[in-house]
């Protein structure tokens, strides 16, 4: 990025991070609420051992399908495992899958999208067709294929969710990068004799950070939702690992009537998490780039 040094007296005083945060909260109360939900989730995931007393994976057949009580805040499931404990530990699984797949998929998409816009021509055309194929390919089939080839497990779930994010992020980033490519400082960088890699990574990528960040934030929520769906289908995380989608599988449907807490609370957790990331992402979008619409 070209930096223009201003005379000292004209330089705007940079607001402190705390002041910026306060400004964000005042301007976007909904976004702040979303950010708060996200924060709660992160705290829950990090301090899961501290905020719970039961073991999330060991069965207790003396306390099967107990209704919510002072002892078991959200009741127990058909194996006598505490629902609250499993939800707290499930936050760990959800955040791990959500963050890793969103960041990895988004970042690969970022680099590919910028490169595609920068080189243009035949490379761009071929690249766009490849992205078309990946976009049109049903996600569930990709996930099924990954699971059949590599087996189930958290790292394969992450792989299955990451791949479909790449084309979506690349699309959005590419359209922003096309505008950046036409700016004079890219020509200037070329004239300086900089290599393509340097121009793409140092001059173009920083200028498309806004759409990238927006895509990634939105993608975390989406990834959590997809992880839940895959685990619900039995294609994602496997028992006994606590995961929200898995908690709704099997038992939850069977016992929905006699023990509705088993079916209700994990769904509430998924909804709140996705809700939080979506609100936060929306606010971030308004804040970073008022012109952009998704």
């Amino acid at each position, binding site marked *: 990025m070209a930096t223009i040094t201003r005379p000292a007296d004209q330089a705007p005083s940079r607001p402190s991070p705390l002041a910026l945060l306060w400004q964000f909260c005042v301007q976007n109360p909904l976004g702040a609420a979303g950010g708060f939900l996200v924060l709660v989730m992160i705290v829950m995931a990090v301090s899961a051992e501290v905020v719970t007393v039961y073991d999330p994976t060991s069965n207790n057949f003396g306390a099967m399908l107990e209704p919510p009580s002072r002892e078991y805040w959200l009741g127990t499931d058909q194996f006598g495992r505490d629902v609250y404990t499993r939800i707290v530990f499930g936050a760990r699984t959800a955040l791990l899958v959500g963050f890793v797949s969103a960041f990895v998929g988004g970042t690969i998409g970022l680099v590919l999208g910028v490169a595609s816009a920068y080189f243009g021509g035949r490379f761009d055309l071929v690249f766009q067709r490849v992205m078309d194929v990946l976009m049109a390919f049903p996600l*569930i*089939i990709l996930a099924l*294929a990954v699971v059949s080839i590599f087996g189930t497990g958290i790292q394969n779930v992450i792989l299955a969710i990451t791949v479909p994010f790449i084309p979506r992020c690349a699309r959005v980033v590419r359209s922003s990068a096309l505008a950046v490519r036409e700016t004079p400082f890219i020509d200037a960088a070329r004239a300086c004799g900089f290599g393509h890699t340097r121009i793409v990574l140092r001059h173009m990528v920083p200028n498309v950070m806004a759409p990238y960040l927006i895509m990634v934030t939105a993608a975390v929520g989406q990834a959590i939702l997809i992880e839940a769906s895959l685990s619900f289908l039995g294609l994602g995380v496997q028992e006994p690992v606590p995961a929200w989608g898995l908690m*709704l599988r099997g038992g939850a449907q069977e016992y929905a009537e006699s023990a509705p807490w088993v079916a209700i609370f994990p*769904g509430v957790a998924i909804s709140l998490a*996705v809700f939080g990331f979506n609100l936060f992402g929306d606010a971030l979008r308004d804040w970073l780039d008022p012109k952009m619409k998704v």
Partner: protein
Amino acid sequence: MLRYVIKRLLLMIPTLFGAAVLVFVLMRMVPGDICVLRLATGGGSMDPQVINNCRLELGLDKPYFAQFLAFLKGLATLDFGNSMWTGRPIISEVGLRFQLSLQVAIMATVLSIMIAIPLGTISAVKQNTWIDYVVRGFSIAGVAMPSFWLGILIILGILITSKAWFGRPWMPPITYVPIWQDPLYNLSMLVWPALATGYRYSAVATRMTRSAMLEVLREDYVRTARAKGLFRKLIVRRHALRNALLPVITIIGIEFAFLMGGLVVTEQVFNLNGLGKLFVESVSNQDYNMTQALVMLVVAIFAFTNLAVDVVYAWLDPRIRYNR
């Protein structure tokens, strides 16, 4: 316009070809094959001779390249062959489930249009009032709630209310009957999955309608219409909504395409025998023919829906011309 459509149709060929390569390679990367699976489920001993015969019969002994060419030839002539698992023609296997999935997708789309357009419009017209907040909350919740969970809640709701009203539990029927044979029975089965998926899609479309309406309501021609004394209702209906609907149509079209291939989870919750279930079964049975045909079907629906959306777009908005 015709030239544009032809160009788009031609551009579809590489996309379909790419998808064909991808599904072909992915399926063959899965360890084992259908012959081994069949024998394993039969419980018999793994006689190499039997496995060889099975492969010979299904054409799996041929080199990959020849198999791929056969697959492409089948695609080009729209002859997908037989399912490797059941041995019945793929066309009839898919046709059975296609009806069900198509009906759920159409019902969910109609439902989402019926919810999204009025709600999105009201929300934009009454921006920053309590109505707006309620609609926005409703739609954000819809995006966040997993549709399979909503499905579980719906089933739970049906059970509880049917018990309270009739004294005994009632569950939606499971066997599919086409709507023209017994509409009441058919609807009592498919309304619920349509509701569960439709709510989610209506939420996305509501958000889109609202933001498009907000933008259009600030246009000069809306102010002009107000200035010449037109009724507000008329302005909203005739001047604003018509222009705001364009991006909404895009969203609805893309969602419809996704619904056709992405109902797997909802079908699981409601125990429906649709395309999604067939998908999962054919992948786990390593039924190459069936999986390949299904993937190509879904990718083609996706590509054609995208094209249809773009054509409708140009038809509705005379300012859009696809000349290049």
